[in-house]
C-alpha cells in the first residue's frame, strides 16, 4: 500500500513540475537592423590612441570576421519562469594578430571561458568590470587559461600590452540566445511558452530591449533595430 502511495505521490509531483515549465516550444526568427558605418570602438572605450600598422593578410581576414555586423547577440529572457542553465561548452576567446576573436562572446552565467593566445607574442587579458575583475598576466603563444565568469552582463576585456585590443563577454541568465549573421538575421528555437524580455547587444552600440510572448509553439517574427548612441 505504501509503495502505491509513494508512486502516486511522485507521479503528482512530476505532473506539478511539468505544469511550471511550459510544454509548447516556439521559434523566433527576425532581423536586427544595424546602422551604417558602425565604429569598431565603443564610445568612451579609452583607447590609447594607437599607431596605425600595415595589416597582414591574416589580420584582414580577422577584421572581416570581426566586422561590426557580427557583434550582435540576441537573447530571450523568460519573465515568468526560471530556465535551467547549463554551462556554455567550448567558450573560447582567442587572441590573433593583436585582435580578440570573437569581438563578443556570449555565454551562460557560470561558464568558464578559455583565453587562448594564438599569436606569436605574449598577450595579457584583464577586466576592470565590477564583480568580474581579473588579470591573467602575460601568456605565451599556444597557452590557454580558463576564467570562470559568474557575473551576469557585459564583461569588458582588454589587453594591457597592445593598444586597441578589446572585446566583450556577454554573460547571460538564459540559455536562449544566438548571434545574428552578417546580414542581421537570427533564429532562436526551443523557446517554451511564456513572456520574454528580448535583448539585443552590440559591442559598440550597446543594448536594445523589447518584449515578446510565445504561445502555442509555432514561428514568430521579431525584428529590432540598433541605434547609434
Amino acid at each position: 500500500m505504501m509503495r502505491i502511495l509513494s508512486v502516486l505521490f511522485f507521479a503528482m509531483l512530476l505532473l506539478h513540475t511539468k505544469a511550471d515549465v511550459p510544454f509548447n516550444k516556439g521559434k523566433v526568427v527576425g532581423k536586427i537592423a544595424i546602422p551604417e558605418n558602425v565604429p569598431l570602438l565603443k564610445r568612451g572605450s579609452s583607447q590609447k590612441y594607437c599607431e596605425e600598422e600595415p595589416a597582414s593578410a591574416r589580420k584582414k581576414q580577422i577584421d572581416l570576421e570581426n566586422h561590426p555586423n557580427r557583434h550582435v547577440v540576441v537573447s530571450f529572457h523568460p519573465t515568468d519562469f526560471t530556465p535551467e542553465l547549463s554551462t556554455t561548452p567550448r567558450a573560447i576567446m582567442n587572441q590573433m594578430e593583436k585582435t580578440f576573436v570573437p569581438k563578443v562572446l556570449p555565454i551562460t552565467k557560470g561558464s568558464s571561458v578559455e583565453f587562448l593566445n594564438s599569436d606569436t607574442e605574449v598577450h595579457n587579458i584583464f577586466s576592470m568590470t565590477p564583480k568580474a575583475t581579473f588579470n591573467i598576466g602575460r601568456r605565451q603563444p599556444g597557452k590557454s587559461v580558463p576564467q570562470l565568469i559568474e557575473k551576469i552582463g557585459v564583461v569588458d576585456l582588454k589587453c594591457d600590452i597592445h593598444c586597441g585590443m578589446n572585446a566583450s563577454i556577454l554573460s547571460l541568465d538564459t540559455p536562449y540566445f544566438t548571434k545574428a549573421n552578417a546580414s542581421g538575421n537570427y533564429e532562436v528555437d526551443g523557446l517554451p511558452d511564456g513572456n520574454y524580455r528580448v535583448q539585443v547587444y552590440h559591442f559598440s552600440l550597446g543594448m536594445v530591449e523589447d518584449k515578446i510572448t510565445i504561445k502555442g509553439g509555432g514561428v514568430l517574427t521579431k525584428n529590432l533595430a540598433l541605434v547609434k548612441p
Partner: protein
Amino acid sequence: MKRIIGLGLLITLGFTQLLAQEKTQIEINGTADLEHMVGGMSSHYYLNGIHKDLKSGAVRPLELNLLSKIRFNPQWSANFRLQMERDEGLKFNQVRLAQANVQWAPKESPWLFTIGRFVAPFGLFASQQLSTARTFVDVPLAYGYFINISEQVGQVDRLGNGSQIPINGRNEWGIPLQYYNGYSNGLKARWNLKPGKSSLEFALTTASPNLPRNFNFDPLNYGVMARLKLQPKYFWKQGFSGSFGKFLQNHPLNEQLIDRTGYQQALVGTDFVLGTGHFEWSGELTAGFYRAPNYNPLSERYTQNQNFNAFSAWLDTKYEFPFLVGTYAAWRIETLQFSDEWDQAVLRNSLVMGAKIKDFILLRSAYCFQSVQNSNQTSYNAWRTTLTLYF
C-alpha cells in the same frame, strides 16, 4: 596660437571632401592630468620636472589632450593631437597641435606612409607620448633632462644654472637628447618585413629628433631617422634606432657663425621589452654624438666646432599585482653620462605605485632619487602624484 588655428582651418578645409564620404569615421579621445608635486631644494623644471616656485608642494593641471583619428576609408586616415600643458612647468597656458598627420596604407601592401607631424621613429619611449601609456610620471632622462647644448647658441658650459643667456626674455637651458614629446615633422614610411616579427621605419624630417620647436621649416636643417623592430622570441622585443640631423635655429647670437650647418646630432640606440607573467622589463640605451660650436658667454664668441658625446641608459622593472587588478609597482634606474665632463652626470632611481581605479581613472605616485654630479645628494629629489582621467 594664430598659426595653430590657421593650420587647423587648412586641414579642416582640405579634408572636407574626404569627410563627406559615407564611410568616414571619426574617433575622439581625450586625457586630463592633475598633478601634486614636491621637490628638493634645487628643483628646476629642466632638471627634475618641477618648477622652482612649486617645489614646496603644489597641485596643478599637468596636461590636457584632445585626440582625433579620422578614418576616411581603409586606406586613408588622419591623426590629430591638440595638447595643452604648463609652460616650463608653471603656467598652464601652452597650447599646441602636437600631432597632425595623414596616413596612407596601400591595399594589399606591407607599407604604411605618413606625412605631417608624427611620432618620431626613434627609441622605445617616443611611442609612449600619452600619460596613459606610461608607467612613471616622469619621462626618462634622455627625453626630459636639459643638457648644455642649445639649439640657438650651441654648447655652453654650465648653461642655465651657471651661464645665463637670455633668449626671448628667458634664460636658455639647452635641450634634451630627444624631444620629450617624441614628435617630428616630415615623411615617414613603415615596412612590415615579416608581420608580427620585424618591421622597419624610416623618416625624412625637418630637424634632428632632439629639437622641440621643430614646426618651422629651415632649408638648412634636416633629419633622417630609422628604426628596426624585431621580435626574436615571443617574450622579447628588440629595437634598433639611428638618426642624424641638424638643429640650428636662426638667432642673432649665432649670426657670427660662418657655418650655420655646424650643429649636428647623431643618435644611435637600442631598446628592449621582456615580459612574462605579471612582470615586465624594458630599457633603452642611447648614445648622442654632437658636432657643435662652443660658445663663451663672457667673450660672446664662438670657438671652432667640437665633438660632444652623451650616453643614457634606463631600465624599468614593472610588476602587476594579480590579486589587486589594475595596480602595479615599478622601479626605474637610469643615468646620463657625458664625455669629457661637458655636462654633469646624473643618476636617478624612481619608484612608482600605480592603480587603474576605474576604466577611465589612473592614479600614480612616483618618488625620484636623483643625484647630479658635484651637487647635494637630495636637492633634486622629486615626489610627483598624478591623477589621469581619460576616455
